[in-house]
């Protein structure tokens, strides 16, 4: 995302005109630990989907999937998973 220079902001001020553009702000780069799902153990109980505070886990009707563009690595999904099939792995640069 290209950030505007001050000259582009004189007329409008601090106003966002396009609704819902928070999606463009990828918060995934805050992550230091990465949740990884072991699908062989996953029971599709949807606890992780329900608990993720960033709505970074989606469910397509078959299986849950983590969107790493927005997962900030808080580990709540791993803590809540009843069968402990999510592991938090340290991100490597």
């Amino acid at each position, binding site marked *: 995302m290209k950030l505007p220079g001050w000259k582009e902001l004189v007329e409008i*001020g601090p106003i966002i005109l396009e609704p819902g553009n928070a999606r463009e702000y990828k918060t995934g780069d805050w992550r230091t630990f990465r949740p990884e799902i072991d699908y062989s153990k996953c029971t599709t109980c949807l606890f992780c989907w329900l608990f993720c505070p960033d709505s970074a886990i989606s469910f397509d009707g078959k299986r849950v999937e983590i969107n790493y563009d927005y997962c900030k690595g808080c580990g709540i999904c791993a803590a809540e998973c009843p069968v402990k099939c999510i592991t938090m792995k340290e991100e490597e640069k």
Partner: protein
Amino acid sequence: MKTTFKKIAIEGNEAAALAFKQVNPDVVAAYPITPSTEVVQKFSEYVANGEVDTEFVPVESEHSAMSACIGASAAGARVMTSTASQGLALMWEMLYIASSLRLPIVMTVANRALSAPINIHGDHSDSMGARDSGWIQIYSENVQEIYDNIFQAVRIAEDPQVRLPVMVNFDGFITSHSEEILEVLDDDLVRRFIGEYKPKYSLLDVDHPMTMGPLALFDSYFEFKVAQAYAIANSLPVIKKVGREFGDLTGRYYDLIEKYHTDDAEYIIVAMSSTCGTVREVVDELREKGEKVGLLKIRVFRPFPLEEISNALKNAKVVGILDRSIIPGSFSGPLYHEIVSGMYHLDKRPIFQPYVYGLGGRDITTEHIKNVFTQLQEIEKLGRPKNLIYIGVRE
């Protein structure tokens, strides 16, 4: 076109309320405080009598007053309020939000000292404290100017190039409670001059949902602040234009500053608000004796009209700068700081003498002003300014 206007005798505060009534804003949210109480009191009478269409919000504090004004203005309403002193101080954080969100709120401030000790009388401590808050600040010398400045403030604030809040200041008690003759404009004329307000952005515009004032951290906040600083600096030509247009309608022209016998003056006093009337008297008297003295009145303090001020002062020998507020721990008042640092780089500049006067409503008389002009001549011989001089204080 020469129009004749009705003349009435009226107090400063009531003239402000009358101007509010003629503007007929969508929303007024206010909490009364001495010495500006009558603005709100009188206006609420107009509301009760059905003489305005305004939604009047009697809030529980000035912080809430400014918050309600911000909400209403963001929603797209034409919004006005009034306060003074501690009330302005309580609005502090909201003042910054109003200006940073570029909301064209108009507020009158009957300038008054700040506690402690408790004092309800006039000085400029309140608005000078708010000088960095991003509001346009206009200072009124007399009752007519309060009235005239309010209409101009509406135009300036709402100008699409500006979109900033404007504070119309006048001296607490000295002007707020003085009964003077006022030339009243016709409602029609006022309506034509201020026009209908069409907000550029409005939170109630449901077809165009928007977010105002979102989070902007180290990657964006700086750009927004520079843009805001640029916007207020850019309002200078608009303020001048509006002052000219107002003059064309009424015969009373307004500018950023007012030069009174400064062109050939060797000694100039710089002042703001009601004190300018006192200085003008003395200038007239001394001019009759052939002394080359003048007055520079600062009408617009924010944005600071440095170029105009420099041009008006640069050929003088000694300039006395009269501040009606004090900065404990500094070597002068705020007006001195701005003028002197702004003119520092000029090759030819006068000697500047700092003065502080009139705190807590202490009188400033023609004798005091004469004495200042005498001191300016002594300072010329000395070749440099003296330390800050306090006018009329007991030692």
